C-alpha cells in the first residue's frame, strides 16, 4: 500500500523534475524579506521531524555560506519557541541571549543584535520558522511590520509545502519501482514528437479505460 497522494506526487515529480525551483522560490522569499525590512540577513529553517531538528534551508545575507544546512535541536532557543508555540516573536539585542549566541554564532562568527521570527504554518502543521535578522537599529518595531512578517511567513509556508511535496516525490521515485514507472511514463510521453506523442497518449487513454476510468 502506498500513502494517498504519493502516486500523484511521483507523477508530478516526473513532469516537474527536481526540488530546485522550490528551493529557488524560498531563496527569493528570504531575499525580498531582507530587502523590505532593510535587514542584514534572513533565513528559513525547516523542521526535520525524524531527527527533531531545525535545518537552515534558505539563507541570504550574513552567515550565508556557513548556515545553509546547519542543524540544531527543535526544542531549543528562540526559533524552537516560535515553532512549538506557533507564535511570531520580535527580539532586539539578541546578543544578550546566551542561548541564541551559543546555538548559531559560535559556528558562524555572526551574532545578530535583533531578530524577528514567525512560524511557517500549513493547515495544522508547523513546518518551520522564518527569521529576519538585524533590522536597522534606529527603527523601532511596529505592528505593521509584524503583519508584514506574517504575510511573508504565509508565503514561505506555501513554498515550503511545495518543496516538501517535491522531496517526497523524489523519495518515491528513488525508492519504489512500481510508482516510479508512472513518473517515467509521464516524462517519456512528454518527450515524444507529434504523431508518436498522439499514439502514446492514445495508448495511455486505452490503459486508463481498461483500468476503469470513465472519462477516457
Amino acid at each position, binding site marked *: 500500500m502506498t500513502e494517498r497522494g504519493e502516486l500523484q506526487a511521483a507523477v508530478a515529480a516526473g513532469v516537474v523534475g527536481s526540488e530546485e525551483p522550490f528551493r529557488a522560490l524560498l531563496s527569493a522569499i528570504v531575499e525580498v524579506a531582507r530587502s523590505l525590512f532593510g535587514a542584514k540577513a534572513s533565513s528559513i529553517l525547516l*523542521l526535520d*521531524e525524524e531527527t*527533531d531538528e531545525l535545518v537552515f534551508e534558505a539563507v541570504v545575507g550574513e552567515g550565508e555560506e556557513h548556515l545553509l544546512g546547519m542543524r540544531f535541536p*527543535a*526544542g*531549543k*532557543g*528562540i526559533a*524552537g*519557541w516560535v*515553532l*512549538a*508555540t*506557533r*507564535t*511570531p*516573536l*520580535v*527580539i*532586539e*539585542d*539578541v546578543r*544578550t*541571549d*546566551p*542561548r541564541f549566541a551559543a546555538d548559531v554564532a559560535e559556528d558562524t562568527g555572526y551574532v545578530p543584535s535583533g531578530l524577528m521570527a*514567525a*512560524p511557517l*504554518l500549513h*493547515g*495544522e*502543521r*508547523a513546518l518551520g520558522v522564518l527569521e529576519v535578522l538585524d533590522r536597522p537599529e534606529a527603527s*523601532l*518595531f*511596529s*505592528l505593521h511590520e*509584524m*503583519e508584514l512578517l*506574517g504575510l511573508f*511567513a*504565509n508565503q514561505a509556508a506555501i513554498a515550503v509545502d511545495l518543496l516538501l511535496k517535491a522531496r517526497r516525490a523524489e523519495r518515491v521515485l528513488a525508492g519504489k519501482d512500481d510508482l516510479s514507472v508512472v513518473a517515467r511514463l509521464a516524462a517519456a510521453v512528454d518527450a515524444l514528437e507529434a504523431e508518436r506523442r498522439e499514439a502514446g497518449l492514445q495508448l495511455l487513454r486505452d490503459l486508463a479505460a481498461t483500468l476503469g476510468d470513465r472519462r477516457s
Partner: protein
Amino acid sequence: MGDVAGHRWDASQAALPAWSLPKDAVDRIALPAEWPEQVTREWAFGGSTGRGARVCILDSGVEAGHPSVGELERSVVVTVDEAGEAVVAEDTEGDVSGHGTACAGIVRALAPECSLASVRVLGANFAGSGAVLLAGLRYAVEQGFDVINMSLSTTKKPFAAVLHELADSAYFRRSVLVASAHNMPVESYPWRFSSVISVGSHEEPDPLAYFYNPTPPVEFFGRGVNVQVPWSGGRRLTVSGNSFATPHLSAICALILAKHPELTPFQLKNVLYLTATNVGGGR
C-alpha cells in the same frame, strides 16, 4: 487525574451540579451587594500589589531569582511518558528559551507582590509539544491558580476539543485563563474560546493601557510592542508580540483578584471591560 492521551476528564473533580434552583435555595446563593455605582480602576485595583493572587506562567520555564522576577512559588516541568501519561516533576533547568522569564517579569513589574509559579511545557522535543501543552494546562487548572498565563497556542484541531473542555473547566473553577491571540490569520487555540481572556497587542507604551475589542474573537489588547523584559541569564531585552501583551493582562487580572478575590471569571471580564482604556479607563 484524566488520561492525556485518551482526553478524558474526571467528572469527580467538579462540584455537584446545580442545574435548578428550588425556592428554599435562593437565600443560599445570595451574593454580597458590594458593587459600586460606577466601576472604576480605583475600585478595581487601586492600592493592589497583587498580594494573595497566584499566577501561573505556562511557558518555557522561568529563571527563578532573576532580579526582575524574584522567587517562585514553585517550578515544575511537565512531560508525557510513552504510555501517554502526564509526568510532573520539579524543574531544575529553569528557562529553555527565555520567553517564560520575560512573561514572568512583565507580571512581576505590575503586580510586585503576587505569587508566581512556572509550569514548563516546552523544551523536551517538538513532536510531543501538543500533548505536553494539554497536560500542563490540565495540571495548572487542577492546582487552582487564580490566573494562568498562556502566551502560546496550538493549530492542531484534534487538541481543540480537549483544550475547550479544559478552558471551560478553568472558567467554572475560578481560574482565569489569559491566552495570546495569534498574530497571523490562522486557526489556533485556546485563545478563540469565549471562556478565556484573549489578548492581542497595541502599540501604546503605557503598561496599564488595555482596550476592549467590540469585535471578537480577540477581546482585549494589551501592551505588546517594544516592551523591556527580563530574559534568561539575568539579562534584559526589548521584545514585541502578542505573547508579551498577554502577561500585561494577566498582571491586571492578578491586581483585581487580589483586591476582589470573590470575583468569578465572568465578573472579572466585566470589570476588565468597564475599566478598559477605551471604555471607562480614564475614571
